[in-house]
């Protein structure tokens, strides 16, 4: 049961082999047993979860009033704690929102609830999604279920650890610079960041609005397809939501890969990638060639500039977005202050953690008088060069592949002393966010250079704009002939 695909869980519910209440109980019991060691969940609420499960059982029994029952009805999932959930605490991993109970649901939460999915709880994350190791959460770090001395990646580290430990069959995540794909890689999962604008940002606490995008995280591409079908779609309440004809992202899943052209960016296969990661990625490419694909070298000459450009643009947007946390309407307010200015600055100093403060300060600086052109505008121009590289590369290929992360999961503390070293762990993922492209990570083997346990390696697939169905097809065909995505940590059984 805990290793079943969403399709299998759906079939079990449809055949009445077990109820949604029984299914939710299995996972709630696992959360109770394993979460103390992993810290993947910030909030659980058994009564609320079981009430949702009972409602799902009822829908399956009486039907949904003429409309078809979603295949997801009754299946449990958990939300990254960046999504507002009415009646549940939504903390964004921050002290400043530690007691915030949202008065409304995010669009993604509404849509998955409308499909009948049952919420198991809210998942830990780097504070305001700023981090690549989950060490910046106010609620403490999340442990990697494959080796609890290692980070799970970030910022959706709670989502990744919970799925890897089979505490939930699926989870939501968000990806501003790699926050779905990098933890998916480090925990051995499949995760997809859609094209910017495909999934609504309404009710998703903003970090960098021109880069933030929500997406599914699960065991397989097939699971992600079912989730994306339920999550995607136009929403008038998000001003950048795209008005497009709804798609069935499963339509191409079973297409053979003969003739597929895979672009391999020269810049992604140079120095900087660990040898065990390289070996696993090369082995995956060999598998793809067996499936009939051909590989071609492509160039992304400006991709080396993506991390520095991102660390101008993302903090700039964050400094503006996070100005709303002022201790007036919601969130933490300092206990003592002499005047309004001190109330703002002290509440924010107490409420935000070190990394969030650093990014607000950097963002404020690059937007300030005299530096705007030199930093912010220059970074936006480089962003266009990076996007143009992809336009050129996609003339010669259908998808781009490479590593998701330069290394397997690293030990706690290994990169936390030097912010720039931490930023560089997203070197292969950030350029897709800058360009607005879809990207995914899927497990392709194990590496273990210095660590006691074998650790998962992620293969990254970057698709063309709106190429989600193609990417899911490419990932699914690989998962039909490999079993990396079915592996789970033995200690979590």
């Amino acid at each position, binding site marked *: 049961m805990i290793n079943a695909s969403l399709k299998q869980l759906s079939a079990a519910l449809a055949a009445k082999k077990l109820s949604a209440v029984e299914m939710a109980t299995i996972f709630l019991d696992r959360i109770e047993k394993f979460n103390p060691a992993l810290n993947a969940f910030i909030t659980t609420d058994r009564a609320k979860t079981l009430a949702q499960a009972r409602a799902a059982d009822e829908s399956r029994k009486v039907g949904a009033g003429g409309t078809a029952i979603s295949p997801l009805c009754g299946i449990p999932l958990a939300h990254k704690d960046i999504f507002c959930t009415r009646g549940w605490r939504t903390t964004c991993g921050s002290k400043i929102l530690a007691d915030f109970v949202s008065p409304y649901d995010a669009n993604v939460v509404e849509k998955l609830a409308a499909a009948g999915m049952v919420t198991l709880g809210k998942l830990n994350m780097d504070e305001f999604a700023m981090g690549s190791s989950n060490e910046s959460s106010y609620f403490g770090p999340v442990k990697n279920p494959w080796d609890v001395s290692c980070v799970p990646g970030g910022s959706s580290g709670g989502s990744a650890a919970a799925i890897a430990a089979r505490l939930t069959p699926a989870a939501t995540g968000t990806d501003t610079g790699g926050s779905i794909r990098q933890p998916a890689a480090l925990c051995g999962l499949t995760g997809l960041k859609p094209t910017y*604008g495909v999934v609504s940002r309404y009710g998703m606490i903003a970090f960098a609005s021109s880069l933030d995008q929500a997406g599914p995280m699960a065991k397989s591409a097939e699971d992600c397809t079912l989730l994306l079908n339920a999550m995607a779609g136009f929403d008038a309440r998000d001003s950048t939501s795209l008005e497009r004809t709804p798609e069935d992202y499963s339509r191409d899943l079973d297409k053979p890969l003969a003739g597929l052209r895979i672009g391999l960016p020269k810049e992604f296969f140079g120095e900087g990638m660990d040898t065990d990661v390289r070996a696993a990625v090369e082995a995956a490419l060999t598998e793809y060639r067996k499936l009939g694909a051909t590989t071609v070298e492509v160039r992304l000459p400006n991709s080396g500039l993506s991390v*520095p450009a991102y660390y101008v643009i993302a903090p700039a947007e964050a400094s503006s977005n996070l100005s709303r946390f002022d*201790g007036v309407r919601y969130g933490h307010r300092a206990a003592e202050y002499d005047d309004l200015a001190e109330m703002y600055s*002290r509440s*924010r100093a107490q409420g935000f953690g070190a990394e969030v403060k*650093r990014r607000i300060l950097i963002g404020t*600086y690059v937007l300030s008088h005299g530096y705007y052109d030199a930093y912010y505008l220059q970074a936006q121009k480089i962003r266009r*060069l990076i996007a143009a590289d992809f336009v050129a590369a996609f003339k010669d290929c259908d998808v781009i592949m490479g590593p998701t992360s330069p290394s397997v999961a690293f030990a706690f503390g290994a990169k936390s002393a030097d912010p720039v070293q931490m930023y560089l762990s997203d070197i292969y993922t950030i350029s897709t966010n800058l360009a607005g492209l879809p990207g995914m990570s899927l497990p392709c083997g194990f590496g273990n250079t210095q660590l006691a346990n074998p650790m998962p390696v992620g293969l990254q697939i970057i698709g063309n704009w709106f190429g989600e169905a193609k990417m899911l097809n490419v990932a699914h065909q690989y998962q039909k002939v490999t079993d990396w995505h079915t592996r789970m940590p033995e200690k979590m059984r």
Partner: protein
Amino acid sequence: MSLSLEDVTRIALLSRIELSAGERENTREQLNGILGFIEQLQAVDTSGIAPMSHAVDVVQRLRPDIVTETDRRADFQALAPETEAGLYLVPQVIE
């Protein structure tokens, strides 16, 4: 360029983040480390390149000017640190 302690104090003021005297030096070092890293962008020739301000080129959508939300003042003010008679309370600003 490298930030001085005065620069850090000014940026912290603009950011409305209180920094203690003890935090300033450490913050200065970390910010200078990050600025040193992003400095490499200055060497790139971007003449003639239009800035890309967003991930997709779409025009801001307009909507009809009609009321779409219901009044939930009580729900929203229940979250506030301090309210009175439907108003948010802050320290006195005008004497």
